[in-house]
């Protein structure tokens, strides 16, 4: 991995994702910090990334590197954790039963992925599916169920749906831009994860040195 990618490109990308994922457009634009539970999920996600070799912290922080390079590595790890927490905050509904269900869903998924101990490619695929499903459920399905601007039939169905579910599923309507911002943030986050210094690349680099030595 180049010094520019480690010191500049990836931390800036993760910070931009943090900003975009915290953005709540509306009549008054709001910036929402990650919840405490999102931070716990972020730590689990980083553990999964390290376990699978998607992120090899030893490549960016170790005793053989200069202090400045280790600071860059530390900054990269810190921005990764914050961006991960913001991603979970972004994908979780704001309130009610869906928030609880999503929280349990993400927690179980992270623990399950750790237990399965998949490799880098499988973890990246699994995260794409997890975040994609979360995006569709929150920004497409729940948003459609909570949209007050629909036609008369839609509103009748919404009232019936609220009656059946005792109003625990519907959420506050979101700004039309929210879904687009979330989509860009998710794609950027997955791209950034694939650019992290991985254990597989370190291994292949060291094998190449061994072959040359032989």
């Amino acid at each position, binding site marked *: 991995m180049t*010094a520019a990618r480690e*010191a*500049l490109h990836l931390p*800036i990308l993760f910070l931009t994702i943090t900003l975009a994922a915290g953005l709540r457009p509306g009549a008054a634009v*709001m910036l929402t910090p990650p919840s405490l539970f999102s931070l716990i999920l972020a730590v689990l996600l980083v553990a999964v990334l390290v376990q699978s070799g998607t992120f090899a912290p030893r490549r960016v922080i170790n005793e053989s590197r200069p202090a400045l390079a280790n600071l860059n590595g530390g900054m990269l790890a810190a921005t990764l954790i914050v961006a991960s927490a913001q991603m979970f905050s972004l994908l979780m509904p704001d309130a009610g039963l869906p928030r609880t269900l999503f929280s349990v869903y993400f927690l179980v998924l992270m623990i399950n992925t750790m237990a399965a101990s998949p490799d880098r490619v499988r973890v990246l695929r699994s995260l794409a599916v997890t975040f994609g499903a979360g995006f569709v459920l929150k920004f497409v399905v729940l948003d459609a169920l909570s949209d007050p601007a629909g036609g008369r039939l839609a509103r009748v169905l919404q009232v019936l749906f609220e009656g059946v579910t005792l109003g625990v599923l519907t959420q506050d309507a979101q700004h039309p831009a929210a879904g687009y911002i979330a989509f860009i943030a998710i794609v950027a986050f997955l791209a950034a994860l694939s650019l992290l210094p991985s254990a597989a690349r370190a291994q292949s680099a060291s094998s190449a040195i061994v072959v040359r030595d032989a």
Partner: protein
Amino acid sequence: MSRSRETVVRAAGLTITIVYAVLIGWLFVRQPASFAEVTGGLSSTVGAYRIDQQAFEDGLRYFRNDQFAEARAAFERADTARRDALTQFYIAYAFYRQGWGRFYSDDQLYRQGLETINLAIALAPEGRLVVEEPGQEIRTADELKAELERGLQVEASDFDPARVFRQRK
């Protein structure tokens, strides 16, 4: 990449990342609602923020003529970033005067006034704001805040018939 060039890239990367992270942290803490508030907040941090003096003078003129909605519009135009304590004081004062009534006060306007005067107090150096203006009865942010809070409370004195003879400040 040579070692010296790599050091420059790493140092620049660290500096830029820290500055960007501080900026994002500042945005999350301050919660600016518009781009004007972002730029105004940043320029006030370095002491470079200036209100639109002409709009402020317009606001004062409207305020003295009891045109409170117009006054607030002019004051808001003068201080788009909501970073000037004096302008926020006058916006709150306009809410107070418009909401004041001989028989009852408008709670909604008073609540907005209270919110604005709290902002003005937060913006003023050490929370102290004194406005020496001839003919103006309320001269400090603390007095205005107390008036607004009194207006929002229901007290026994609210039912005193002599209340109708009190004067607006």
